Each structure stands twice: as structure tokens, then as C-alpha cells.
């Protein structure tokens, strides 16, 4: 009997402590960045990243900024029946969170492919183009096309578009390119690897490579023709067709009236909504 009383008391004590902790946690949270909207509007949580400049990243004072945010804010302005809130997650976890209904839209420059479409619902309307090019060390002259990469090692970011494109290429051509997976989020190690000839190339987009060269001093360059021209889309859960249709419609409008291009020029420094 006494044992039971002891245990019951301890359990009660613990419940109180856990409860307090949870309440404290609730108060301590400051991560949500909400856009104001009508009170009867439906809350939609956008899952995006916080480490991908210039699409979604945190500025000096810790606010989420970037292209993804600007476009979706405009979309939300045109869709008052929804109220968008932003949740930042690591790239991989955005998809997990979407599947688990923790977020309702994935917005992190996602590209479409059949494998992915099996599990998630992709938008029909794209909002950015993604033109991937080969990037090599400044002094390299031997690589000018994807064929030149045969037998070479190429750094690819885990889960990135670059990895996907090369994986497809490898599948079709009998694995000629050696893929080296990296965390992708640390350009320092990637550029260092090119400089030291540890790897021969990586795949990126021009505006990002320009950023690297500004930061680290001219160390890398873009070569040859684009190896892939694709577009990026929002991702939804399979059942959220209404949401998808609504946003697709707005995106079409924004493209038609030039708003999307304006945002792109303002944030990305060029119109990358239809070509690079």
C-alpha cells in the first residue's frame, strides 16, 4: 500500500513539473512568423528552410527572409481566405513534416520527379526556374560538358536537385560519374575540395556561384551549357487539391501581371521565373 502512495505522489509531482515545462516552452517559443489575415481565414502552415540564401534564410536580426517568403506573402495577399504562417525546418524535414500534417505546404525550391509525385502532390504552376550548371575550380580547363565528367568525381548535396539530375544521368548512362554526397549546406568544404582537386566539380546555379566567388575570392567558375533546366514547385499533401488549385491560379495571375518577375528581380537580382 505504502509503495502505491509513494508512486502516486511521485507521479503527481512529475505531471505538475512536465506540465510547467510545457507551458514554459509554449511561452518561450518565438519561431513563428505570422502574416495577419481575417480572423475567419483558414490557417495554412508553410514549411520552408532557414539556410538557403537567397530563397529562405535568416537575416542578421534573425528574421526569415528570402524569395520563398516574398512570393508566398504576395500569394496570401491575393487569397484572403487563407492565413499563411511560416515554419522553418531542415530541408529533409520539410517533407517529413508535410507527410505528418505538421505543415501544409512545402516551399524550398522543390523539383518534380515521378518518385516524389508518388507520395506528394506537386503544383502544376512553377514559380522559379532552376538551371543547373557545372562548376569547377578557376584554373580547370578540361571540363566543359557533362560528358567531360565521365570518370570524374562530382560533389552533390544530399536531397538536392543536383544529386537528382546526376543520379538520373547515371542511371541512363551506366554510372559514368562518381557521385560524392555532401551535406550541401557547407559551401566551404565543397569549394575547398575543388581547390585541392579532391573533387572535380559540383553542380550549382549561376547566381549562387557568383555569391561564393564574392565571399571567398574568385575560386570557382561555371563552365559549359546548362546540364538541366527545370522548374521548382510547391508541394502539398495528396488530399489538399483545393489549396493547390487556389495557389496555382494566383501564381498564374502573378506571372501574367509581372508581379512574380518583379519579386524575382528585387530578391534574386534578375527575372528567374521563366528562364535563368
Amino acid at each position: 500500500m505504502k509503495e502505491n502512495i509513494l508512486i502516486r505522489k511521485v507521479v503527481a509531482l512529475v505531471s505538475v513539473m512536465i506540465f510547467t515545462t510545457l507551458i514554459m516552452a509554449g511561452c518561450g517559443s518565438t519561431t513563428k512568423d505570422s502574416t495577419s489575415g481575417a480572423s475567419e481565414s483558414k490557417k495554412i502552415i508553410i514549411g520552408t528552410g532557414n539556410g538557403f540564401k537567397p530563397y529562405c534564410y535568416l537575416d542578421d536580426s534573425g528574421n526569415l527572409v528570402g524569395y520563398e517568403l516574398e512570393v508566398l506573402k504576395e500569394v496570401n495577399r491575393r487569397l484572403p481566405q487563407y492565413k499563411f504562417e511560416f515554419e522553418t525546418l531542415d530541408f529533409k524535414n520539410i517533407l517529413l513534416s508535410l507527410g505528418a500534417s505538421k505543415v501544409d505546404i512545402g516551399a524550398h525550391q522543390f523539383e518534380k520527379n515521378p518518385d516524389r509525385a508518388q507520395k506528394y502532390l506537386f503544383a502544376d504552376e512553377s514559380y522559379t526556374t532552376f538551371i543547373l550548371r557545372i562548376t569547377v575550380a578557376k584554373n580547370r580547363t578540361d571540363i566543359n560538358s557533362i560528358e567531360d565528367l565521365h570518370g570524374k568525381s562530382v560533389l552533390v548535396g544530399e536531397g538536392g536537385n543536383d544529386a537528382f539530375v546526376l543520379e538520373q544521368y547515371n542511371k541512363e548512362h551506366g554510372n559514368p560519374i562518381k557521385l560524392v554526397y555532401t551535406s550541401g549546406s557547407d559551401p566551404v568544404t565543397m569549394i575547398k575540395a575543388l581547390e585541392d582537386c579532391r573533387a572535380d566539380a559540383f553542380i550549382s546555379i549561376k547566381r549562387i556561384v557568383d555569391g561564393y566567388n564574392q565571399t571567398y575570392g574568385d575560386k570557382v567558375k561555371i563552365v559549359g551549357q546548362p546540364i538541366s533546366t527545370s522548374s521548382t514547385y510547391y508541394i502539398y499533401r495528396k488530399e489538399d487539391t483545393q489549396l493547390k488549385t487556389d495557389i496555382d491560379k494566383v501564381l498564374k495571375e502573378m506571372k501574367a501581371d509581372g508581379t512574380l518577375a518583379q519579386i524575382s528581380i528585387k530578391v534574386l537580382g534578375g527575372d528567374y521565373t521563366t528562364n535563368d
Partner: protein
Amino acid sequence: MNFDVYFMLSALQESLKYTWVTLLLAIVPFFFGILFGTVIAIIRFYRVKVLGELLQLFVVIIKGTPGMVMLLIVYFALIQGFDTISQTFHLAVKSKDINLIYIAFAALTLTATAAISETMRGALTAVATGQYEASYSVGLTKRQTLRRIILPQALPVAIPVLCSNLIGLIKGSSLVFMISVTDLMNAALIPANTNYKYLEAYIAAALVYWVLNVVVENIFFWLEQHLSTYKREVLV
């Protein structure tokens, strides 16, 4: 949330292929960690002047640095240091010829050394002072005392903690992905990149880790029993 069991199985298969990398990444640093860690523990235990304090600083810095940062720092420092040396001496070998796994070994060995040196120091403290006195009284030297009397008694004390150290290394080695070494965790994740089925991949990796660590625990349990025969008798 629909869970793709078949994909999980294929991720499991991938991660099994790379399990040996994870094991290598844990066992090599563990081995060197025991070697260096024991030496550091002994030096600190005997309070050797200057050297003891320097080593204490070393242990504190390594313990306080997150593993990911340690890996990046070692990566840059080693590659740079190596090229500097090879340029100075006009050697033909360049840092790009070193397999990245050696850099991972170096970084993980630092972490392991710091952790294991604390384990061994704790174990040395656990041996009663009377054992030293008795050894000296029968004429053993300091070194003989350490090797024949103290370490054999400290080791069984250290074993459960060493086991935790090794498990920590096995789990912590997945960081090597930062420098593009593929281990069991990342082998499971790579196929998920195409279809975004990350949860399945993580769970597949978790199963391999779990089995691996249960096996490690059992080996160490057996080892502890075996090494402390002199203690067990009292229980019988």
C-alpha cells in the same frame, strides 16, 4: 502518414552494406582513444607538472566542442597542414591523395581520446591507495605497479564506461557525412533523396545501430565478467 515498409527494407540493405564503415569509424578511434586516453589519464593522475595541466586543457577543449565543429576544424587543419608540409619538403604526395576516412579517423580519435582519458582517470581513482603501498612495499617500481597491479584492477572498473564510450562513437560517427564519407546512416539516406522517404531511411538506420549496440553491450558485459574473475568469486 503512410509508411513504406519496402523502401525501409531497401534502405536497410543499403545501410548494411556500409555498416563496416561505421564500425571502422568507431573501432579505430576507440583503439587509439584507449591508447592515448590511458596515457593522458596516467599523466594527469600522477599530477605531472605543466604537462598534466596542458593535457587537462586539451581534454576540456575537446569535450566542450561539438563533434561537427571538431570534424570541420580537423578537416581544414589537416588538409592545410599536410599541403604546407609537403610543399615545404617538395614531396610529390598531396592532401588530395589522402582518403577522407583518415581525416575522419583523426577527428573522431581526438573526441574519443578526451572521453576515454576521463573514463580511465575515474577508474584509476577507484583503485585503493593501499594497492600502491603494498606494491611499493614488495619492491615494485612505479611502472611495474601500474602495469601489474593498478591497471588490471582499473580496467574492469572502466569497462562499462568504455562500453558507453564505444556506443557513443558508433552513434557519433554519422557526422563524417559533413566531409563526404558515407557511413551506414548516410547510406540509408541517399536512396531517400530521390523519393523523400526520409522517415523510413532513418528508422532503417536506427535498427542497424540498435542491433550493433546491443551486440557491443553484450561483448563488453562478457569482457567485464571475464576480466574481473577475482571479484566474481565473492558473489558465488
